[in-house]
């Protein structure tokens, strides 16, 4: 009988691993330890349709409770793993030692916080889990004016959703464009314009230095330029920090994430890590170590680990992809643009359907698409197969990129 698999973290990666192990006909015991009080749920709706009430709680669970029973997966809720001993192959949960033959760290990430967030008044939130989203959803019902700090994906998704629900929304972003670390300037410009047209006040090169409050409830923000702005709710979306503490404490190397090899194995041979908490060398990033925060990465890394545990290891080679729904616009990304030195635009930007093809020399590295699923899907295939359309072909909407595959 194969040995027990202990999974730390019931998020996207943890659940996918349970599914993939049973699909690979793994016969050993599987236990899933979850810090949260909830059965694992989908996170993407939390910053989109969920906060305004368009998606209900019953749509969130990734699998029904009966799934775990049917597949003989022992789920423990409210059960954080507090330490790991890799020499004894044991993890500690609530003071009890639990043995494993394979341990998988799928602990995700937590929101980065601003200095003043620790003793913030009521009405100030981060957005990572269902409990955050429930509070934001409840707060939005009586909210007139929302301040979002950080124009990353989650901040902009939330801003668009709240604005569509009739809330006055102001977004503060320190950089000179939105989603600056992730997309080409053209895409930033497009989204700045669409959010503004919808009524969101986007302030670039602007930051919040403190809060105003009355009766323990936030009432406004102090801006770095000395002005103040009334707000009855503030959401901070300034990125995340990987949850690496268990690995560090166990003596496993971490560097912006738990370091793993191409099989998602850490330097301890029976310990794996995947998803938002893990850093790996990615062939689509010129082999550099990256930590990807996406459904795709969590899912495909979990599949990679399942294959190893089930005895048929396959390296992690999947093309990275990501999406972000902002209001009625869909941004889709394929590949990684870290090393790009030029880009080409394709499509109809005025009409709101276009893509940006990122190149290094002649090599296609990544494609960001706005409302253009066709380009996105072709891009996934092109990048996977290392086929680079000529830049003239990429820029010519009349050229059928599919013909290259």
């Amino acid at each position, binding site marked *: 009988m194969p040995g027990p698999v202990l999974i730390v973290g019931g998020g996207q990666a943890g659940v996918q691993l349970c599914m993939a192990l049973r699909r690979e006909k793994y016969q050993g015991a599987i236990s899933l330890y979850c810090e949260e009080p909830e059965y694992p749920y989908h996170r993407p709706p939390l910053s989109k349709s969920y906060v305004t009430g368009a998606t209900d709680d019953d749509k969130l669970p990734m699998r029904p409770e009966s799934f775990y029973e049917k597949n003989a997966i022992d789920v423990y809720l409210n059960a954080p793993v507090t330490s790991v001993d890799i020499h004894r192959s044991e993890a500690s949960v609530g003071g009890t030692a639990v043995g494993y033959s394979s341990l998988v760290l799928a602990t995700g990430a937590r929101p980065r916080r601003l200095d003043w967030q620790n003793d913030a008044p009521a009405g100030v939130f981060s957005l990572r889990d269902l409990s955050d989203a429930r509070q934001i959803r409840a707060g939005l019902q009586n909210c007139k004016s929302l301040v979002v700090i950080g124009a990353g994906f989650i901040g902009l998704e939330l801003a668009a959703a709240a604005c569509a629900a009739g809330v006055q929304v102001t977004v503060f972003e320190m950089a000179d464009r939105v989603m600056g670390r992730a997309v080409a300037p053209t895409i930033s410009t497009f989204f700045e314009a669409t959010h503004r047209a919808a009524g969101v006040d986007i302030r670039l090169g602007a930051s919040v230095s403190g809060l105003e409050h009355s009766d323990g409830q936030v009432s406004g923000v102090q801006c770095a330029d000395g002005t103040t702005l009334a707000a009855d709710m503030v959401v901070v979306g300034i990125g995340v920090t990987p949850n690496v503490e268990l690995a560090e404490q166990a003596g496993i190397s971490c560097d912006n994430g738990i370091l793993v090899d191409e099989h998602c194995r850490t330097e301890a041979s029976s310990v794996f890590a995947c998803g938002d908490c893990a850093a790996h060398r990615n062939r689509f990033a010129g082999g550099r170590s990256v930590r990807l925060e996406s*459904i795709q990465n969590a899912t495909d890394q979990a599949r990679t680990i399942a294959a190893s545990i089930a005895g048929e290891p396959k390296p992690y080679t999947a093309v990275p992809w990501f999406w972000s729904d902002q209001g009625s616009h869909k941004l889709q990304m394929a590949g990684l643009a870290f090393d790009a030195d030029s880009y080409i635009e394709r499509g109809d930007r005025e009409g709101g359907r276009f893509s940006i093809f990122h190149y290094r020399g002649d090599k296609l590295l990544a494609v960001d698409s706005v409302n253009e*699923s066709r380009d996105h899907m072709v891009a996934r*295939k092109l990048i996977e197969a290392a086929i680079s359309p000529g830049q003239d072909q990429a820029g010519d909407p009349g050229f059928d990129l599919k013909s290259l595959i």
Partner: protein
Amino acid sequence: MPKITFVEADGTEIVVEARSGISLMENAIANNVDGIEAECGGSCMCATCHCYLADDQAGLSVMQDDEDEMLGFVASERKPGSRLSCQITVTDDMDGMQVHLPAEQN
């Protein structure tokens, strides 16, 4: 409540009392139909909720461009009745529907 039969690639049939108003994918997941993965949770991004329906199935919504593009890249063969189950809302007209599932979803 329409009765829907999911037929797994190995021929196993799972008959479910489906809920109208939610997607076919959600009905499959709620009933532990293994042949549907749905990693993106119904965002029309992953194509791991592929299924085969009869061409003349009643009650089907028209396929949108996104779904059509996604179907171009499914892991198992695309056939005339191919759909993404997350893009189909179950209605009472679908009583008796047969949903065939592919062998591979990714």
